[in-house]
């Protein structure tokens, strides 16, 4: 066990995978000499060489397109997109190509690329360094979508992603890259996909979140506990595949559900969770579901603290859900 920040855990996960398997290689902008703008790949080029930690020209479509070709050939490329906000030049490669190779070839061409990218707000990054658009990828059949919220999960889920056989979108909550630290197992450490983490057990209310939103959500749960309300907090970890069983079991137990994400509300992943609970656990609900989310605006700069779900907003929603029914 080693105490690490989340971004250090990503770094250790990459290094571990590269030591295990010579087919693992990294490509992206500024990841080699510079070690990545967030230092996620710090020291890796030195250890593994420029042939395996490849600095690329400034082209997201080139990065993902090239990674796809490498994966078709049998390598295990991990592509870094510097910010999720800049992924759209590669959107065609991800949505039309990466996600569909296995399917469209009748299984002849699996295409295993991990696309790592920092995402989310709270760093005063404005419109183009803050967005949380995971729903685009969840809506695209053939992509797995993974979002860690702790250093241990960052390493464990990343190693699973790199050894998986399918394309994985690995979204890293950059707001907590350094602010969240924790014990991380050394060596090979893997966490299976599709298994949510019960971050806090409770009986009165279910709070569902992922990524950086786990921080205010857990803080709100602590405050609720002081008020005598025991909230169960679920960290989804992987949106695709989704751990429906954990979600439904919790709602059946508590009867009350608050969903937290920083993405815009309309057609955000919370809508999927709410629909699932309505379809499969409606009669367990004692109160209407509440979503605490970003708003349906572009991501604001100066007033981002009003846009992002906060401990206070989550607490307010939880009290609301607790009062009704």
């Amino acid at each position, binding site marked *: 066990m080693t105490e690490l920040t989340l971004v250090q855990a990503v770094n250790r996960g990459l290094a571990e995978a590269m030591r295990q398997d010579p087919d693992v290689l990294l490509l992206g902008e500024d990841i080699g000499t510079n070690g990545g703008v967030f230092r996620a790949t710090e020291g890796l080029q030195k250890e593994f060489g420029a042939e395996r930690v490849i600095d690329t020209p400034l082209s997201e479509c*080139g990065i993902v397109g*090239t990674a796809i070709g490498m994966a078709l*050939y049998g390598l295990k490329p991990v592509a870094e997109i510097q910010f999720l906000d800049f992924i759209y030049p590669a959107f*065609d490669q991800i949505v039309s190509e990466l996600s569909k190779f296995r399917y*469209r*070839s*009748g299984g002849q061409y699996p295409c295993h690329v991990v696309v790592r990218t920092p995402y989310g707000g709270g760093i005063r990054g404005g419109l183009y360094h803050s967005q949380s658009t995971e729903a685009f990828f969840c809506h695209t059949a053939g992509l797995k979508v993974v979002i860690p919220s702790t250093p241990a999960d960052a390493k464990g889920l990343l190693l699973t992603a790199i050894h998986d056989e399918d394309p994985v979108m690995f979204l890293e909550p950059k707001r907590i890259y350094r602010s969240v630290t924790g014990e991380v197992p050394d060596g090979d450490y893997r966490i299976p996909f599709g298994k949510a983490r019960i971050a806090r057990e409770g009986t009165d209310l279910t709070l569902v979140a992922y990524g950086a939103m786990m921080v205010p959500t857990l803080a709100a749960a602590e405050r609720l506990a002081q008020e005598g309300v025991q909230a169960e907090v679920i960290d989804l970890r992987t949106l695709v595949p989704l751990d*429906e069983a954990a979600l439904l079991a919790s709602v059946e137990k508590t009867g009350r559900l608050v969903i937290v994400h920083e993405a815009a509300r309309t057609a955000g992943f919370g809508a999927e969770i709410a629909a699932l609970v309505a379809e499969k656990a409606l009669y367990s609900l004692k109160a209407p579901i509440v979503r605490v989310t970003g708003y349906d605006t572009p991501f604001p700069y100066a007033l981002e603290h009003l846009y992002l779900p906060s401990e206070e907003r989550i607490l307010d929603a939880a009290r609301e859900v607790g009062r009704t029914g």
Partner: protein
Amino acid sequence: MANATLTPDAHASSGEFDLPPSAWVDAYRTMVLARAMDERCLSLQRQGRIGFYVPLEGQEAAQVGCALALDPKDWVFPAYRELGVALVRGVPVQELLDQFIGNSGDRLKGRQMPNHYGYRAQNFVVASSPLGTQIPQAVGAALAARHRGDALVTVAFFGDGSTSTNDFHAGLNFAGVYRSPTIFFCQNNQWAISMPRSHQTMSATLAEKAEAYGFGGVVVDGTDLGQVYRAVAAARARALAGEGPTLIEAQVYRFGPHSTSDDPKRYRSDSEVAEWRRRDPLLRTKEQIMKIGAWTEAQDAAEWTEARNRIAEAWKAAEATPPLPPTSFLDDVFSAPTPQLENQRREVVGLLERKVIRE
């Protein structure tokens, strides 16, 4: 560097092909088979027996000439018009027809429109409809092969329209930076649906774009089998020698529509087509092999009959091949289905059992 743009009545064939006469004849026979496929599939589409078809008529010499210069271990990244390449690489006619129908013999399991095929055994990567996306992928595969120490090249096939895409720029730029062993084979067939080559870009040639990426580009007469073969063989040798990629612009003409959904009369004149038909690659190749005494009119007539019969037989077999199992469309999304997909499969099975939907 690049030659001047060819005109329809450009020079006669060089007649050079660095292979024995029997290879010329085999190439011509493949071209006949490709054109006979076109003829048959256009007719099948009009009869409603296949849903769609993309003809290649006019581009046979470019495709066959290019494919012959490759090794079976080289990786082909096709667009959706590369029938000639698929035939050279040994994809059986029936497998192609199975794909056009989308029956249980289709190796792609009915997942794609006709012509969007791919065959791993032939190193013929599965095509898609978005244009140009295969270009950086071909670069990635070439870099992967080099990483593994495999001596091979990758070839990206695309058309004049695709040279305007993001992916063309990204792919050629990456190839230049990493000197990837890749051949960019552009069949400039003069029309991107209705957009003429003259309006696709103000570059005098497409080949000269390579210069800005730091490698060579050549223009070849894509109706001349020998010229195409030599250019590709040379590019392949350079790539294997570590000298990096090459962009080849094979100037051809699409005689037919873009696809069966297109009416070229809306945007180009019959006289333009007639001009280019004077350089029909099949006629030119036939002339060449007759000139060296390797082919006769009688052999030619027999060859056409044989090709048509072979396709008719394969079509009969394809039509007799059973349809796909109805729930097969739920397979191959991931290496193993997610719980969500398993639930959805149960839903489809239930709907079939209750006959809400039918096979």
